[in-house]
């Protein structure tokens, strides 16, 4: 027999009763416990008796024991003032201790519940970790919400401004307290340190760039308006990471010159760590743009960031932007068109690609969390039913139902806290997995620190609380209500409760269906994207980017000299079957787009000139990429010294503007009044990503308009094997030229659908989790129902029912619930379709194939989850079953 005296004394100790009174109490209670234990031990065995009584002791409200006046002591009265706080605390501690013990007694129940909650909360925490970093925490700029991006409006799809536009806006708009322009240097710059050329990527910015963003240099200085004057020297501001990693964090870097594109440039400042703009992978350096007085409204390469002045209203800013557009039209004799500028929040611009994805994921994890909670509620209800006799007796005799509900809530909170701890581990893995999956093209995600910080853990805590309430309240309420029937033995199953359980499982299936439909649609999109014809044969092509320094390659002759030798050596490389140059590759994008006009084809009045992708390619480009010739001829040696500039156009361009006629021999006017003659038509190529709209393309021979930055492509059975020879060739031609962005065309193509893959994978993982949890829920419910109907089944079997009939009876119930859940879930998915549309490709959000397949899948899962308990019921021995009743 346990030492009840000690245990009871320990339990009473916190009450601070006068010693004599306490001794009386302890003695009396000890007697009762010893007698009770002896009786229980005879019935249930010593171990069980001890357990039962310890529970009783734990669940006794010890405060009730001290209402008795202690005749020989005034101590309780003296202790009274401090009782409130201690009560509350000791109650809580008692409740929690009771909760822990109750859970330790049912380890498998606890394990399932904790794991379920851990999965739900963990997934939520991981996704919230990303949301917190991207959407909640501020961008690394001062007062980021004041920053605006200025773009052309109603200007035929142009995204950027010319220098003339920028200067007009800067002069006119007093609603901006500061304004700056930045141009992305698409091909980067070659830095030479220790004779090693290396490409880095950054932007060319106007004087007020850093002032507008409100971030000062960490060392040295940022640019000023002086730095953008035409005669100003070229200067560099470097990112902290670039300085640390590429320059070894050399002290005294400020004021030193480094070789950039073959010329010395002075480093004037280093930015603080964590600063990036406009994108992390385009923020290794910033160089000062120097503006001549613009002579035309041309070269639309300037992106503009501005800071709203305090008190500036959107209407006033817009009026000033309109006035600035008028200035530009007046100055440059612009055609009478109604274009203007517009300003949108920079935060919105930066987060535009990622916000809907994150919100979708948040909704998905919320569903998973709900499903997890529903599962645990069901578990708790089943358990409460098993404990009903114990609970109802306690309610009838113990003081309050509230107390019992509190204890159940405490039990739940212990489970939820356990789930929370598991969740932190899961969230850590989940975040690592998410970050590993995030495509490098996703804005912002790679540029902000993402991890389990205090913020995120706070959210985990909130989830734990939410789960405690969601999960704890229902069983507590049910138990308290049923318990109130008194000490009379309850009929163990109420229809209301089984209906509640049914409803929970139906909800679970509905939620899971919505998630799986979402994931299914994403996967279908991915499949459609994979089937998109890029227009080239992507396998077996190695690409690399080369940028020649202007100092040594100022003339076309010098560039052609280099590229001719490069291509000759490249074609001679063992394993290379074809090689060519181009200034754009599918589907990574082209650097250049141009407006064009077709001779003899009039523009509709007020219409904009069409825009086409413009590429300069070497003769063998089409053969190397396997782009088919549809009409005319490809470029060849003839096109080197010709006076009529030849051009090749894409099939789509030919179809759209030369319907029915041959475009060969027709002339096109490109930007800058540059006329070309069509000599050939080739297949369409998806240059701007697989999911881009249908675009037009115009090709010109590289040899006629050589640029200093280009890609070299080589076809080979072993693409990776021909990288080292390329580096050797380039080094032998010019030691100061870097080979950068080495990747296969397949990798580029995969990169283009990376965002779709990211969404599909993440949503798929969450949907899988939901499906798993839902199937556990269905299994649990069906097991419970069949168990509670064991007697009925036994009678049926005894009356001659076949196993198959019993099986079907059970399955029918489960499948009925599943169908209801599927119907509700499908309705929900239809309601949510608009939130998905923008993320889909080639499939609608109401795709019947996806809906049908998912419905069948869920039905299958429900059938599988019900199968085991149903078979158990069908195989039950009627004799045993009936005898046990």
């Amino acid at each position, binding site marked *: 027999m346990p030492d009840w005296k000690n245990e009871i004394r320990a339990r009473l100790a916190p009450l601070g009763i006068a010693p004599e009174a306490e001794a009386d109490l302890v003695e009396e209670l000890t007697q*009762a416990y010893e*007698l009770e234990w002896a009786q229980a031990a005879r019935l249930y065995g010593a171990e069980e008796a001890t357990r039962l009584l310890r529970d009783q002791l734990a669940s006794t409200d010890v405060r009730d024991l001290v209402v008795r006046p202690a005749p020989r002591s005034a101590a309780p009265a003296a202790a009274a003032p401090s009782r409130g706080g201690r009560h509350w605390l000791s109650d809580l501690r008692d409740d929690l201790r009771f909760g822990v013990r109750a859970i330790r007694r049912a380890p498998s129940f606890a394990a399932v519940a904790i794991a379920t909650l851990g999965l739900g909360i963990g997934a939520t925490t991981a996704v919230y970790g990303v949301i917190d970093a991207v959407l909640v925490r501020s961008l690394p700029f001062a007062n980021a919400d004041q920053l605006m991006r200025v773009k052309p409006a109603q200007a035929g799809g142009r995204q950027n401004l010319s220098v003339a536009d920028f200067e007009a806006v800067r002069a006119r708009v007093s609603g901006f307290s500061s304004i700056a322009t930045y141009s992305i240097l698409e091909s980067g710059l070659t830095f030479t340190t220790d004779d090693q050329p290396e490409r880095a990527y950054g932007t060319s910015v106007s004087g007020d760039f850093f002032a507008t963003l409100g971030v000062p240099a960490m060392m040295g200085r940022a640019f000023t308006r002086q730095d953008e004057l035409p005669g100003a020297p070229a200067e560099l501001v470097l990112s902290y990471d670039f300085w640390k990693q590429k320059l070894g964090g050399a002290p005294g870097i400020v004021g030193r010159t480094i070789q950039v594109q073959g010329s010395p440039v002075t480093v004037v400042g280093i930015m603080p760590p964590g600063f990036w703009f406009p994108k992390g992978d385009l923020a290794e350096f910033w160089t000062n743009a120097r503006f001549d007085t613009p002579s035309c409204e041309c070269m639309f390469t300037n992106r503009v960031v501005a800071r709203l002045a305090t008190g500036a209203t959107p209407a006033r800013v817009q009026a000033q932007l309109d006035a600035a557009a008028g200035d530009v039209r007046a100055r440059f004799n612009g055609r009478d068109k109604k274009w203007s500028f517009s300003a949108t929040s920079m935060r919105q611009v930066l987060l535009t690609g990622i916000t809907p994805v994150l919100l979708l994921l948040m909704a998905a994890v919320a569903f998973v969390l709900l499903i997890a909670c529903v599962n645990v509620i069901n578990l708790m209800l089943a358990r409460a039913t098993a404990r009903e006799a114990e609970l109802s007796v306690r309610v009838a005799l113990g003081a309050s139902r509230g107390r019992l509900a509190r204890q159940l809530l405490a039990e739940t909170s212990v489970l939820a806290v356990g789930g929370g701890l598991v969740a932190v581990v899961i969230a850590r893995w989940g975040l690592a997995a998410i970050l590993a999956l995030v495509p490098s093209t996703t804005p912002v995600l790679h540029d902000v620190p993402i991890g389990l910080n205090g913020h995120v853990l706070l959210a985990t805590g909130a989830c734990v609380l939410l789960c405690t309430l969601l999960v704890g309240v229902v069983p507590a309420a049910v138990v308290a209500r049923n318990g109130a029937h*008194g000490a009379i033995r309850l009929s163990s199953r109420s229809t209301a409760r089984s209906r509640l359980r049914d409803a929970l499982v139906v909800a679970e299936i509905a939620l899971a269906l919505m998630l799986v439909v979402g994931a299914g649609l994403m996967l279908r999109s991915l499949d459609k994207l994979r089937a998109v014809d890029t227009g080239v044969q992507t396998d077996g092509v190695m690409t690399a980017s080369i940028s020649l320094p202007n100092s040594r390659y100022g003339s076309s002759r010098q560039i052609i000299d280099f590229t001719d030798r490069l291509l000759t050596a490249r074609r001679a490389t063992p394993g290379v079957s074809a090689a060519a140059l181009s200034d754009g590759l599918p589907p990574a994008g082209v650097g250049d787009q141009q407006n064009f006009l077709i001779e003899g084809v009039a523009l509709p009045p007020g219409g904009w000139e069409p825009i086409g992708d413009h590429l300069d390619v070497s003769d063998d480009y089409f053969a190397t990429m396997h782009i088919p010739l549809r009409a005319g001829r490809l470029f060849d040696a003839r096109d080197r010294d010709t006076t009529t500039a030849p051009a090749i156009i894409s099939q789509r361009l030919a179809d759209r503007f030369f319907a029915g006629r041959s475009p060969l021999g027709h002339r096109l006017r490109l930007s800058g009044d540059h006329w070309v003659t069509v000599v050939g038509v080739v297949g369409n190529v998806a240059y701007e990503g697989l999911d881009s709209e249908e675009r037009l393309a115009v090709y010109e021979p590289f040899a006629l308009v050589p640029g200093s930055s280009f890609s070299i492509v080589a076809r080979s059975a072993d693409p990776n094997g021909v990288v080292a020879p390329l580096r050797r060739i380039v080094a032998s031609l010019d030691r100061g030229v870097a080979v950068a962005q080495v990747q296969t065309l397949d990798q580029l193509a995969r990169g283009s659908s990376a965002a779709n893959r990211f969404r599909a994978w993440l949503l798929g993982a969450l949907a899988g989790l939901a499906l798993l949890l839902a199937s556990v829920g269905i299994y649990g419910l069906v097991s419970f129902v069949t168990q509670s109907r064991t007697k009925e089944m036994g009678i049926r079997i005894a009356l001659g029912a076949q196993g198959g009939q019993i099986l079907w009876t059970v399955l029918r119930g489960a499948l009925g619930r599943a169908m209801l859940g599927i119907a509700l879930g499908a309705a929900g998915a239809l309601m949510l379709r608009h939130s998905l549309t923008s993320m889909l490709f080639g499939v609608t959000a109401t795709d019947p194939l996806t809906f049908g397949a998912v419905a069948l899948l869920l039905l299958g899962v429900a059938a599988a989850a019900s199968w085991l308990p149903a078979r158990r019921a069908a195989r039950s021995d009627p004799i045993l079953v009936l005898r046990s009743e």
Partner: protein
Amino acid sequence: MSTTDLKKGSAELLVLGLLEHQARHGYELTKLIELRSNGVLSFRAPSLYPLLYRLEARGWIAGRWVEKAGERRRRFYRITAEGQRTLEAQRKSWREFVAAVSSVAGVRHA
């Protein structure tokens, strides 16, 4: 009278009734309740003691330690005069309640 009050009242009524003619110790009370209700009602000791202490605090019963030779001392409870009055009052209201329930039930069945 709410269900809770009724139940609490009935537990008090039970204890007072059992002590009306005889002083008893706590454990004996639990056994008697179980026995006389044919097991329908079952009081566990830890649940009973709070009730006893409440009744004692109200002055309806009084407990004292009794020592017998060769045995452990035990605390016996007896009913007080005030407890007796309360018992009468509770019996009366209980009878009224039962009568009310029966008459309502009777009308229903008629």
